[in-house]
């Protein structure tokens, strides 16, 4: 087995403490076994795990990795994974961003960048093909993400540089701060921004000019062209370009799974004021796409009138529209845009921020948090002014913002009663789907390796549509299958949306992989490697002290039935959930505490993983 393309087979390792650059040559075996992206990240973190003390200490590492398909002629090949140990959850974490950053890393000749240590002063990493330098970033201290990127481009005199940067929130170690690129591409979840901040790393600036290695370009182009044609001929293609993920608002609201008023309700009366239709009619001024992607999910929106006039941002997509719309009771699309803009500029995750602000509003309503503790700012559902002020306070860690900045664990520590109010798993705030009506989705959140996020498995629509007669066994199986397919996209360095949204066949990716690398590989083989990576991340979490309790969804799911909407009365049964969780462990080949068994690790050729 010899790699003939797809990989540059080089990792750039940068130790910021020693200002020491080191290029690692990657063996064929390692490259293929862990595929790339999140797979490489997980493996490299496993190998360094015993040296990592606190997530925000210099001992933590962050692995920035596109995949073997990144930058190639196939749909949406612009994904970069960031893997590390999360300051929010204390466990394994990864988050990825689209845009152009992945392509540039690969064009500079690297498959991945590992960042270690901590720079003495606020710095940025400058990579121009083989030239790698750590430069002073004092000038950019405190600047927002968009502004930092704009100024860096201006100062370096090149508009075509690709830049990933953190905002003030990342510098201030806000536990759900993100890494931002090209205005609004974010590696949003799990607090990657804070890890950059803890390393005194304000930004990575990169320019690459090299050819990407491809074994059989003719075959790849043929496959790519077929893929583009398939996507373009999908009946929803044109609609998708127009509305992107905003289409989900109407679906989620009608289905009764759209978190509203801090996950209390599942339908929002004013959903038709914050949906894709409203965006398209009144706000949208342009489209944005990630690299080589025909789908153009990104919507550039402008507020033309009212108190938020002049706000221009790319976004929101469904998650943001829900978290800063229904979940905090805002029915003004312009306010959602403003919140989206502020989050991007401060560099905080819109999901976590919206989720936590909603929890704080409810806590205030219930008298858990006093007016004094809110710095005298009374909070109400839909009060957009105070919500904007809260985003600022979080970004700058001021007053109540300083507490919220510690994430859900921080809030629960200060006000233990909030444990019942915050929807989170493993300390990561849950994204925008209510799971009380769909046990598979609850299981998906519960067993997600990074915490309450839907990236690993999204089964809710299917269960609600056709899952009424599924047995628990089938339900556990579908979650596992999704948790194997979906992370594979993050390993290959491509986006999963062509597959999720426009029904593009996943087996095409095995063909892409074979054409690029020259190693004929089947989808089953790739899925097996993805499963192996899931076991590595599980092993990391077990080593870091995760227990079965961390695989449960939030308190509300079991204790408060849905009050309104089409799924009224639904809640999860703890016993049934425990049962499906055990089934899930069993199917995964994990013991009853969720620890991967030796025979499982054997089957996945992970014999060197000792838990």
């Amino acid at each position: 087995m010899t790699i003939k393309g797809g990989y540059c087979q080089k990792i750039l390792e940068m130790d910021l403490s020693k200002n020491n650059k080191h290029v690692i040559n990657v063996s064929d075996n390692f490259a293929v076994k862990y595929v790339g992206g999140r797979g490489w990240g997980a493996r490299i973190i496993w190998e360094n795990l015993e040296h990592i003390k606190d997530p925000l200490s210099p001992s933590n590492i962050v692995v920035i990795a596109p995949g073997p398909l990144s930058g190639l002629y196939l749909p949406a090949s612009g994904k970069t994974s960031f893997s590390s140990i999360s300051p929010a959850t204390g466990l394994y974490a990864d988050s990825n961003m689209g845009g152009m950053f992945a392509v540039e890393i690969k064009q500079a000749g690297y498959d991945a960048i590992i960042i270690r240590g901590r720079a003495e002063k606020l710095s940025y990493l400058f990579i121009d093909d083989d030239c790698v330098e750590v430069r002073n970033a004092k000038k950019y201290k405190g600047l927002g993400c968009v502004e930092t990127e704009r100024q860096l481009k201006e100062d370096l005199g090149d508009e075509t540089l690709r830049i990933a940067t953190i905002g003030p929130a990342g510098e201030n170690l806000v536990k759900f701060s993100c890494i931002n690129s090209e205005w609004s591409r974010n590696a949003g979840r799990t607090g990657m921004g804070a890890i950059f901040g803890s390393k005194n790393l304000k930004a990575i600036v990169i320019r690459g000019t090299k050819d990407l290695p491809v074994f059989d370009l003719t075959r790849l182009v043929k496959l790519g062209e077929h893929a583009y044609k398939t996507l373009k001929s999908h009946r929803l293609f044109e609609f998708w370009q127009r509305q992107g993920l905003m289409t989900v608002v109407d679906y989620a609201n009608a289905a009764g799974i759209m978190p509203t008023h801090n996950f209390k309700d599942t339908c929002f009366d004013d959903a038709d004021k914050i949906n894709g239709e409203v965006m398209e009619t009144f706000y949208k001024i342009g489209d944005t796409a990630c690299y080589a992607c025909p789908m153009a999910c990104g919507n550039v929106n402008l507020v033309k009138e009212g108190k938020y006039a002049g706000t221009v941002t790319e976004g929101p997509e469904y998650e943001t529209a829900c978290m800063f719309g229904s979940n905090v009771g805002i029915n003004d699309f312009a306010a959602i845009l403003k919140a989206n803009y502020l989050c991007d500029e401060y560099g905080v995750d819109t999901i976590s921020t919206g989720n936590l602000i909603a929890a704080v509003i409810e806590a205030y309503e219930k008298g858990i948090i006093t007016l004094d503790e809110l710095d005298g700012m009374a909070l109400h559902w839909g009060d957009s002014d105070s919500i904007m002020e809260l985003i600022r306070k979080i970004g700058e860690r001021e007053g109540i913002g300083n507490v919220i900045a510690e994430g859900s664990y921080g809030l629960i520590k200060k006000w233990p009663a909030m444990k019942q109010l915050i929807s989170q798993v493993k300390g990561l705030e849950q994204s925008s789907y209510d799971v009380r009506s769909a046990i598979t989705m609850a299981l998906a959140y519960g067993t997600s390796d990074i915490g309450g996020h839907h990236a690993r498995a999204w089964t809710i629509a299917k269960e609600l549509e056709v899952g009424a007669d599924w047995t628990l066994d089938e339900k556990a199986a579908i979650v596992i299958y999704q948790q194997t397919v979906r992370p594979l996209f993050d390993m290959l360095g491509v986006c999963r949306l062509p597959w999720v949204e426009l029904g593009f066949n996943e087996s095409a990716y095995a063909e892409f992989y074979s054409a690029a690398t020259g190693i004929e590989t089947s989808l089953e083989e790739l899925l097996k490697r993805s499963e192996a990576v899931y076991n590595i991340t599980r092993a990391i979490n077990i080593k870091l002290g995760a227990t079965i309790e961390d695989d449960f969804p939030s308190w509300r799911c079991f204790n408060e039935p849905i009050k309104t909407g089409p799924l009224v009365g639904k809640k999860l049964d703890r016993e049934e959930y425990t049962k499906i969780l055990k089934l899930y462990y069993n199917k995964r080949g994990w013991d009853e505490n969720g620890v991967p068994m030796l025979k499982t690790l054997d089957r996945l050729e992970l014999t060197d993983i000792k838990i």
Partner: protein
Amino acid sequence: MRKLTVIPERCSGCRLCELACAINAFGVNNPKKAKLRVFSLYPHPVIKKPIVCNQCGIPKCSENCPTGAIYIEDGIVKIDEKTCVSCQMCVTSCPFGAIFVHQEIAVPFKCELCGGNPKCVEVCPKKAIIYTPEHILGQSARLAGVLKYAHMKEVEYFEHGIVKKLRYADIEKDKTSGDNNDN
């Protein structure tokens, strides 16, 4: 004669045109070797614009070429690699920046319309690059002018208790008469 023209408002900035162009022209997966470039400026104004060669009738690149390496053939501006000394005068003198260089390629390169079947046009998922007969050029501006003039508006009214809609052209006074607007 047909030419490339772009509609920046449609461009999503995906750069698929660059990639397809480079593969077609040089047989490598490297958008930095494309004969056109998508420029994204942000955050203000939010615009993405593919930069393509206009195949000028009186090309500045040719005018400024010290060795006479740039010539026009069948309306297409071409660089003769044998005569070119790669001084890159053409690159800097093109008013649109539509000639490119790459360290691995000996001489500057530019769009030659793919023999009449431009790849960028074929792949663009947003139809932002168009290959169009010369006489159509400028038509979008003409059309925009007419639309701006017309300012179609909609009014709702009731007729026998039913809501009806009427569309009309809201022609601005100052635009029609050329008089000074007295508000």
